């Protein structure tokens, strides 16, 4: 987690306010606000169906919001769409590269979908191919690449025209650890170049390592936002008690937790019980001889808590 000073308002590159979207009769996004600044990575988190991808799709102009306003680098996406779209790049969840072209051909062709054209497109593509480690595959069709290199190509396509805002929708899903780390490094380099990066992911370690700020979505709304610690404090609490599911007193303890308003969740062999300091003190007093573990909350606990709230 990159805990730095909060960016100032004058370098806001993405500003989305009051986004609403109904798909198939369901209100998938229900009043979401987002901002992302130059040199910042905003992590969008949430369980499946929380509205992450729909929010992202509205922000990069794929879907039209039913209500709300989106500004990219100062350009209103609804009224100044061409300029707004020129200033953004997208790495979609699926690999949507053009399988009829080689790796280099993909970058060239993507460059042709933007005006004004990148002045030094050819040099830009050479530089990207080097930066993204794609040189050995430059003249191969993307379908022949491994999953990690396909994602690298997708990110390279997203930035070929030198956008100011980049949207990365689950950029490392399905990759092995080594490939994930390679993609993380690329995302770091994009931030270092001053781009505003909006990232969705299911990987908690990824969100924590890459994001300067987190925004947690749940059922189409922003459930919590800010630095990772603040988000965890808001949604989960200060502590998590881990109690073995095989413990002899477990049913009695869980009942006690439920009565005290806590929300225990069982994961494999352990019960996870998020709670604040006061609750923890009461628990310690109630079960002085019980064996358990207490640790700070993680983003995994956040997901458990959200899933619990949803059900």
């Amino acid at each position, binding site marked *: 987690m990159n805990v730095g000073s909060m960016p100032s308002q004058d370098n806001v590159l993405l500003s989305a306010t009051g986004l609403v979207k109904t*798909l198939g009769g369901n209100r998938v996004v229900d009043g979401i606000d987002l901002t992302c600044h130059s040199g910042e990575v905003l992590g969008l988190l949430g369980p499946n169906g929380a509205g992450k991808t729909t929010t992202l799709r509205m922000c990069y102009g794929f879907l039209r919001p039913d209500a709300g306003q989106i500004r990219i680098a100062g350009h209103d996406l609804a009224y100044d769409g061409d300029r707004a779209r020129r200033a953004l790049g997208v790495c979609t969840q699926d690999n*949507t590269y053009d399988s009829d072209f080689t790796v280099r051909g993909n970058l060239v062709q993507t460059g042709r979908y933007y005006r004004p054209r990148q002045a030094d497109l050819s040099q830009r593509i050479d530089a990207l191919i080097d930066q993204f480690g794609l040189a050995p595959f430059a003249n191969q069709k993307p379908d022949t690449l491994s999953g990690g290199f396909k994602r690298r190509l997708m990110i390279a396509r997203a930035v070929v025209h030198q956008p100011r805002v980049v949207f990365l929708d689950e950029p490392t899903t399905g990759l092995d650890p080594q490939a994930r780390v390679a993609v993380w490094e690329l995302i770091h380099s994009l931030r270092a170049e001053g781009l505003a990066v909006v990232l969705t992911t299911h990987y908690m370690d990824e969100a924590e390592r890459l994001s300067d700020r987190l925004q947690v979505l749940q059922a189409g709304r922003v459930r919590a936002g800010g630095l990772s610690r603040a988000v965890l404090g808001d949604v989960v609490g200060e502590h998590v008690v881990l109690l073995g599911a095989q413990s002899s007193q477990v049913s009695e303890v869980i009942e006690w937790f439920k009565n005290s308003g806590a929300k225990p969740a069982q994961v494999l062999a352990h019960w996870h019980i998020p709670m604040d300091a006061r609750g923890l003190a009461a628990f310690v007093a109630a079960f002085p001889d019980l064996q358990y573990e207490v640790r700070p909350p993680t983003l995994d606990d956040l997901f458990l808590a959200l899933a619990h709230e949803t059900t």
Partner: protein
Amino acid sequence: MTNPYSPAFAWQSRAILGRHLRVHLRNWYTVTLPPVCEPLILLLAFGVGLGRQIGTLSWHGQSVDYLHYLAPGILAYTAFMSSFFQSLFAAYIRMHFQKSWEGQLTTQVRLEHVVWGEALWAATLATAYAALVCVVLAGFGLANILTLHWEWLPFSIPLLFLAALAFSAIGLYFTAILPSIDHMTLPFFLVIMPIGFASSTYFPFPDVPFLSTAVRFNPLHQLAEGLRALLLTGEVTGHLTCAAGLCGLLLIIMIPIDMRLLRRRVFGDR
């Protein structure tokens, strides 16, 4: 949605057209073979082979041998089939399986540009194929098997482009509504066969009052008959005007429908 026709002239639509052209030209040696061989085989098998059995046909009171009857029809049919096939099958694959539409739609290209890009490409390809048919016909002419009013051949190209553009709009309609590739046979039965057989392309349409009236609304029939009159007699007939009018009307009606349905299909949106 704003004016659905103006994106036809936008640079984004040309960028999509250029993309398809680049992919196509890379395989020019294999993709050129069918449009050259198909009319050649049809003209030899039906025009020359079957034509010897048929002898002459009566066409608007004139006696015309079958090869001469068939040649202009094949020109019209090529524009129809190539365009329809490209905008239906190839576009469906790009949209559904290759996901190249989605990749394009995350750039400055919008859906209306993708739709027009596909339509323009289908029409361009079909016109190029029709031009290759013209070359094949010219070969028959050099061999003294076929005599046409050759001077009119270049003038038929713009009309063939317009017709191909209109047929591509029908193809895109099915691209938008077909639930899966397994349903691709439906437009062949519902569109290609009725329009194709009721078009006077391969044989004169029977003089049945009701059918004769209905066939007037078939743009392929008007196109085939117009080209036939142009190339066999050198006359510009009302069929050409009707073909242009019907194709223009088809475009005006179908393009907004295509865009609406494809928006729903691609975005799951209103």
